């Protein structure tokens, strides 16, 4: 049988890639941010996996921090999005390129 670790790792990588792809392709800012959260979820899975494999707690703690930080980022991010929406009437990323070149 294939060992669990590589399965979990595979899942985490898949999640990560899905997230990255979504972050690049989707246009709605909130969705993009959710995709980034998916990436973080993938990372967390990887951490937990390795933490179990290495019989050490560090990974688990790391996951806790990742969650907390993700929450904080979510707060800030949503605040920014709301601000965008009120100023701009839309949160479509394509509409934001005042600054270029």
């Amino acid at each position: 049988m294939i060992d669990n670790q590589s399965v979990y790792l595979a899942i985490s990588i898949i999640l990560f890639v899905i997230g990255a792809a979504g972050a690049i392709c989707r246009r709605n800012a909130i969705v993009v941010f959710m995709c980034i959260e998916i990436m973080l979820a993938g990372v967390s899975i990887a951490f937990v996996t390795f933490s179990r494999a290495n019989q050490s707690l560090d990974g688990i703690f790391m996951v806790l921090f990742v969650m907390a930080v993700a929450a904080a980022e979510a707060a800030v991010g949503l605040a920014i999005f709301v601000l965008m929406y009120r100023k701009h009437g839309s949160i479509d990323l394509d509409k934001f390129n005042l600054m270029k070149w």
Partner: protein
Amino acid sequence: MLEFVVPALNLKAILPQLILALTALTVLLVDVFAGKDGKTSLGGLSLIGVVAALVTLFLSRGDFESAYAGMLAVDGFGFFITLIICLVALLSILVAISYEKVCPEIRSGEFYSLLLFAAFGMSFMGSASNLIMIFVALETMSISIYVLAGFKRDNLKSIESALKYFLLGAFASGFLLFGFALIYGAAGTLDIVKLGSFFTAHPDLLHQPLVMGGVALMTVGFGFKIAMFPFHMWTPDVYEGAPSVVTGFMATGVKAAAFAALVRVFFVAFAALQTDWTTIMWIAALLTMTVGNLIAISQTNIKRMLAYSSIAHAGYLLIGFVVGSEIARSAILFYLLGYAFANIGAFAVISAMGSKGEEYNELSDFQGVGFKYPMLGLTMSIFLFSMAGIPPAAGFMGKFFIFSEAIKAGYVWLAIFGVINSVISLYYYLGVIVRMYFKDPEREISIAAPAGTLVAALSLAAFGVLQMGIFPSYVWDLARASAKMLM
């Protein structure tokens, strides 16, 4: 599995950072409890905090230890980075107080406390010796700065820059984290020192995919923060949109902190892999400085121009990183400090270039400034000279140390490219000076007379630049001593 040692509660080791954090909290409370009149005192309060942090930093200097079960490395390297960060914060706050006239939004507890929290995170990035710690510090810094970047709530550019920085920052830290995860998987620890000893102990495990992937992804994460090609794209937009004072703060502080973390992780944890990363970093350094300088030439907005130039500076710093000798590391520290002085100074001048509500950031707005506002013109010229690497300014000595070390270590071509690049950079740096002194203004701009704090900031920065340029030995010795003490 669950045994672990209870670390000592060593507050002394983190005293400066602690003071920063406490000041930040105090500022928050003062903001909400004191009324209108309280708002005016916020800047002064945070100023006091930073100064106190600086003092304690020097008082608690010298003891070289690993605190909190290896979470923190209280070493010379961290000391120097914290020094840079505190100076940066000091100058930024000074500028901010006078910037309140141009952009009233920042007269609020959030601004100053966020700035202090960011500084707090930065200084921890300098001395964090555990990947968890680095991650937390990095996010503390970044999240604060996401908000700061978008602080002009009514300004579309500002919001846009916040948005871009936020999304890309989160994106990049995802990569960074994944890198951490892979390394953790390979070595089973997140402690940088343990990682170093592990990799030196098991050279056979060095080239397994986990490690390699980890190193690659971490390079991405850090590369993003230091604006390394091709992860630099966010820089110009964010720098242009953010309020000038914030731009100065992030252009110097973030770069310093990120470089500190980069150096610590790569030279302590991955010392065994140096041969592997050198080549790719060589190319990265070359591309980074070239792209930065090249695009900077054709800019018309000075903030954007300086953003590209800061990319180029990251390139010069990467030369030092590639060389990697101890002296090169001290050169990086020296360069970071000099760059911090010059860059914050430049952005201070830019932030002064505005009256209530509007700012004059177009290059054409600088025409005739030299004679109309001699103080701004003179200091700006000093800072630009320094960034261009013209003696007798800090930038010159910094470049000199880095390039000469590169040549000593046999990276002659890199040094040559570096010199060529600084020649290119002359073009746009001197362009500004030419505009300031030899061209007549296109449109009539009226700016408030520089406030006392701004004058203080400008003179402090100018003093730093010239002092490091004319009597480099003090700072250089300090940097040498600091780079020696890298756990």
